[in-house]
């Protein structure tokens, strides 16, 4: 099996495309079976990405391409870039990669998106199967927060049932307008579990300005679509796993009042959530705005986590906007089942992030030998925390997988996995999958 991967950077998308074709696609003998293409968002215009994809499809001779935009992209052999692209090319019989599927209305109707994944998953009867999909990411425009102010009113606290519905309508409207959170991904995962899909890995495309995000399928560039494929093989096994930086657990708090439908937390520790959140992290409003204002007021270093039926801690991001009394939390509706929910705070650090990446990669290789390739979906928040030390994280992944194993890392706006039917929708985490030969257990028999 031939797998090539490369990263290039250039101010012009045309030049970056030309270089990546030369470095990655031309290195494959003949037409690649499949390409995973990730560009950074700085090129901005949809037409630019359409031109680049058309060029890649034309030069490679295949339209089996999926991808999207991510604030940072990296491959095993190169330093990460925030101004360029990474491509991974596949050719060979060991792994069958299905032609890409896409569904363009995934924010509004995630179940239909899940159906696309399920149909492709069921279409192959190979021993090992893994669904891989990319979705639109968080996409808050300035006026999005204005719409949420209604959830602060006296009536919203008094008439919970009604305002749960209103919250859902607001979220749906956000979806229609092309922005919102990525909570729909949790619905996709839950639907996949019900439909018998065992393993999947996904990530959300994102531009850190939260103004646009694009997904690629063949030559097409979409703005609110799910794109994906299925990796399957009779010879190789696929392992997928996830983790996050749990090294600095600081304190607990309670979500005491909230609206399930919109993940809108009205009170933390029985106090207005916005004020209580700043108190918990011990930061003034001004300092918080300066630090996180450019990131749609999403807390970056301070990660909260909830326990669910599958994991001890599943992290979520809190958006603490100055015009709101509450806090928007990226918590799926089903996790907000009680009245008083305990959450834990974790402070993120560069070293902790590196260690968790190593831990994830190390878990992935268990039971596998002769690894062929790896794909990692890493949170873009982790990219911002690590800064130029982010390459150390990839070095540690390389150390775990082995020097010659090609891998690609996409820095996303939401990460999700289905690990043996266990759905994980999390934030500020790293998810990955690797393909390799299963280790044969030989027993010593003594006669």
């Amino acid at each position: 099996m031939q797998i090539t991967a490369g990263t290039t950077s250039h101010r012009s998308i045309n030049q970056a495309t030309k270089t990546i074709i030369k470095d990655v696609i031309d290195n494959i003998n003949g037409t690649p079976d499949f390409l995973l293409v990730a560009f950074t968002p700085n090129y901005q215009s949809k037409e630019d990405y359409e031109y680049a994809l058309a060029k890649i499809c034309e030069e490679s001779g295949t339209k089996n391409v999926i991808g999207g935009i991510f604030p940072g992209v990296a491959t095993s052999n190169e330093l990460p870039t925030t101004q360029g692209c990474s491509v991974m090319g596949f050719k060979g019989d060991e792994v069958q990669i299905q032609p890409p599927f896409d569904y363009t209305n995934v924010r509004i109707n995630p179940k239909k998106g899940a159906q696309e994944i399920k149909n492709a998953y069921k279409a192959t009867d190979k021993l090992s199967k893994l669904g891989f999909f990319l979705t639109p990411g968080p996409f808050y425009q300035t006026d999005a927060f204005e719409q949420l102010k209604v959830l602060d009113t006296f009536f919203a606290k008094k008439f919970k049932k009604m305002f749960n519905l209103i919250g859902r309508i607001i979220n749906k409207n956000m979806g229609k307008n092309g922005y919102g959170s990525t909570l729909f991904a949790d619905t996709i995962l839950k639907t996949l579990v019900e439909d018998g899909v065992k393993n999947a890995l996904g990530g959300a495309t994102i531009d850190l300005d939260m103004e646009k995000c694009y997904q690629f399928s063949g030559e097409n560039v979409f703005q609110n679509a799910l794109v994906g494929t299925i990796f399957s093989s009779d010879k190789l096994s696929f392992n997928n796993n996830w983790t996050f930086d749990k090294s600095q657990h600081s304190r607990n708090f309670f979500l005491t009042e909230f609206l399930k439908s919109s993940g809108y937390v009205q009170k933390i520790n029985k106090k207005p959530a916005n004020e209580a959140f700043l108190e918990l992290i011990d930061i003034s409003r001004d300092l918080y705005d300066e630090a996180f204002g450019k990131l749609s007021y999403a807390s970056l270093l301070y990660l909260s986590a909830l326990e669910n039926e599958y994991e001890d801690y599943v992290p979520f991001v809190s958006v603490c906007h100055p015009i709101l009394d509450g806090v928007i939390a990226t918590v799926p509706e089903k996790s907000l089942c009680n009245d008083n929910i305990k959450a834990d705070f974790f402070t993120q650090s560069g070293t902790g992030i590196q260690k968790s990446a190593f831990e994830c990669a190390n878990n992935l290789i268990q039971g596998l030998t002769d690894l062929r390739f790896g794909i990692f979906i890493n949170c873009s928040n982790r990219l911002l925390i690590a800064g130029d030390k982010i390459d150390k994280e990839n070095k540690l992944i390389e150390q775990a997988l082995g020097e010659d194993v090609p891998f690609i890392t996409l820095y996303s706006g939401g990460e999700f996995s289905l690990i043996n039917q266990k759905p994980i929708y999390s934030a500020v985490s790293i998810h990955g999958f690797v393909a390799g030969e299963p280790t044969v257990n030989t027993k010593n028999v003594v006669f």
Partner: protein
Amino acid sequence: MSYIQGISSELEDLIFLEDVEASMLFRIDGNVVESCFNKKYSQELLRTVQWCKANVEKVSLEMRSNNLNKVTYELNEFCVLFFVVNSITILTALANQNVNLSLLSIEAKRKSQIIANYL
């Protein structure tokens, strides 16, 4: 492509990043090897460039003696990022204070490695 054209192209890439105003490759004695500016540059920016030119020797000495790869300063409403390229050159990026320093430093690290290959 000559090595100086290659370096110039890499420096130009940096000023296409959001909020980056200028990028320069300094020799540690303060001489400019190559530089690239945004089309609309201000007097204030030029004053900051002068400060960089005057102080790069001192900064590089400090970086070398303390084994630092990267140093960031905030002055005159600008953010100045020094990144070691090799023992005699330093990559410098000037950006306005709204710049996302994490993203800039990732790209500056990549550029410094590419530039080191040219030298």
